[in-house]
């Protein structure tokens, strides 16, 4: 019950901050008396939040789908030989700073969401690939031997046995990936995409600490809300009733 409550609390705080930020103007004005405009007004915070979420959703879904596909492929008998390569490439994707990817991608793709999605997607790939591989390889060999011996084909083995048993670890990978994407998505504003990073970037440029603070607080709350939702889902997964063949 408390577990289920936590995401609701963070979500409520996030919405309150999003819609109430402008009304906090007197507060920011007193904190930063030298600033002429203590609250970001170029866009509404709700619009920033939505745009940020959209970018995270697109990049997150893509790195989730691609990462899981890679993880599944390299744990099949026919893909085993590419496992090292996949791990190296996805690790390199994360070592490479997203800003650098943006710098490389913009000349070929132009300004806008596309290079941002590409750099976020690469950055978020590693945890998904690693956890999918870890989840699938920790399935006990006795269980797999039994599945093969009883006559499960490759697809049923994956769908009915391996993926359900790997689900908690895969979910953890997705969670890490989405959380780092939420934080990193702010840099997309450097290539002209509106995100919660926009007030931060503008704040840094015009030396307006209040803007930076407003963007950062919202990004932090968003990350906490999403993270606690993932935690709640993981808990549900772990306490999920065993698959019954005859639910009443």
């Amino acid at each position, binding site marked *: 019950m408390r577990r289920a409550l936590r995401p609701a609390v963070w979500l409520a705080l996030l919405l309150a901050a999003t819609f109430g930020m402008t009304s906090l103007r007197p507060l920011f004005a007193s904190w930063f008396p030298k600033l002429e405009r203590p609250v970001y007004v170029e866009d509404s915070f709700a619009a920033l939040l939505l745009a940020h979420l959209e970018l995270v959703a697109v990049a997150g879904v893509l790195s989730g789908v691609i990462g899981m596909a890679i993880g599944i492929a390299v744990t099949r008998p026919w893909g085993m030989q590419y496992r090292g390569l996949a791990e190296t490439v996805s690790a390199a994707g994360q070592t490479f700073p997203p800003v650098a990817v943006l710098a490389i991608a913009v000349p070929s793709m132009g300004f806008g969401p596309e290079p941002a999605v590409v750099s976020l997607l690469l950055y978020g790939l590693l945890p998904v690939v690693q956890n999918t591989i870890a989840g699938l390889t920790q399935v*006990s060999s*006795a*269980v*797999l*031997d*039994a*599945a*093969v*011996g*009883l*006559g*499960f*084909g490759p697809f*049923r083995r994956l769908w009915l*046995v391996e993926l*359900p*048993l790997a689900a908690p670890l895969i979910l953890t990978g997705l969670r890490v990936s989405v959380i780092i994407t939420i934080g990193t998505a702010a840099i997309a504003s450097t290539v002209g995409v509106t995100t919660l990073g926009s007030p931060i970037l503008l704040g840094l440029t015009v030396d307006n600490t209040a803007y930076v603070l407003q963007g950062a607080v919202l990004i932090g709350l968003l990350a906490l809300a999403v993270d606690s939702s993932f935690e709640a889902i993981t808990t549900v997964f772990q306490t999920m009733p*065993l*698959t*019954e*063949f*005859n639910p009443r």
Partner: protein
Amino acid sequence: MIRLEQVRRTYGGRDAVAGVDLVVERGAFCALIGKSGSGKSTLLRMINRLVEPDSGRVLLNGDDVCSLPPEQLRRQIGYVIQSVGLFPHWSVARNIAAVPVLLGWQRARIQARVVELMALLDLDPALAEAAPAALSGGQAQRVGVARALAADPDLLLMDEPFGALDPVTRTTLQTELLRIQRETGKTVVFVTHDMDEALRLASQVVVLEQGRVVQDATPADLLAHPANDLVRDLLGRWDSGLRRLALRTVLAATRPGADAAAPLIRPDSDCRAALSRMAELGVSVLTVQSEDGRHLGLLHLADLIPG
């Protein structure tokens, strides 16, 4: 039922199975026995095509197993392994129902079959919704056997199924397996390294050494005429006489008569147990009495040793 013709399989230049010919008749209980690395598991796994032979043929009811789709083949063959391998995310009932579900049986039929199998394996019906993690080792293997029998296969392959169980549980499960095999007339191929287990359960004992069949005989023949030193070693050189006694029931050695002083023994005990009882009690005559109290005769020490 099963015919292996010059079956050979090599792993890394070494023959795991080096040209084996073997026939297992319908209804037989065949034990494959040998030391580690003798190729017994590989041989077993060739029957349901978990391992494919490099050369030679494995025929099941006259069909080469390599000509059948592997999934379809395996669904017709029960398979039990030492580590059980229950699906941890499925309830006991769902585990037992695995193959019937694959075969697309009606729900009501599956449900009835699960209930029937849980009764056959002496599993508490309350365990149906339990998680495999909540089971004891013995219960888990009962579920493993029930799962293998679910689609009523004619053939059951068992790879050291009771090897990880404590001696008491192992004996209980052996007894039940024997009962089930006799009741259902299934063909069983059973891998073990325990000669007592092989002699107790099997109607046909196949001794393997370095991928070759050393001896293929009934338990009595094996004891009477071990083919070589390996077989003698597996039999245990010093107590093979006792093992022969263990193959004979008390009833077979009973003669008419009565002796009020002689302690009781059941007719379905084996002669080794009878000898042990005589030694323990310091007597040379036992009264043979059935479970319902019927007097059947006497068992004399001299009659234990077959002439």
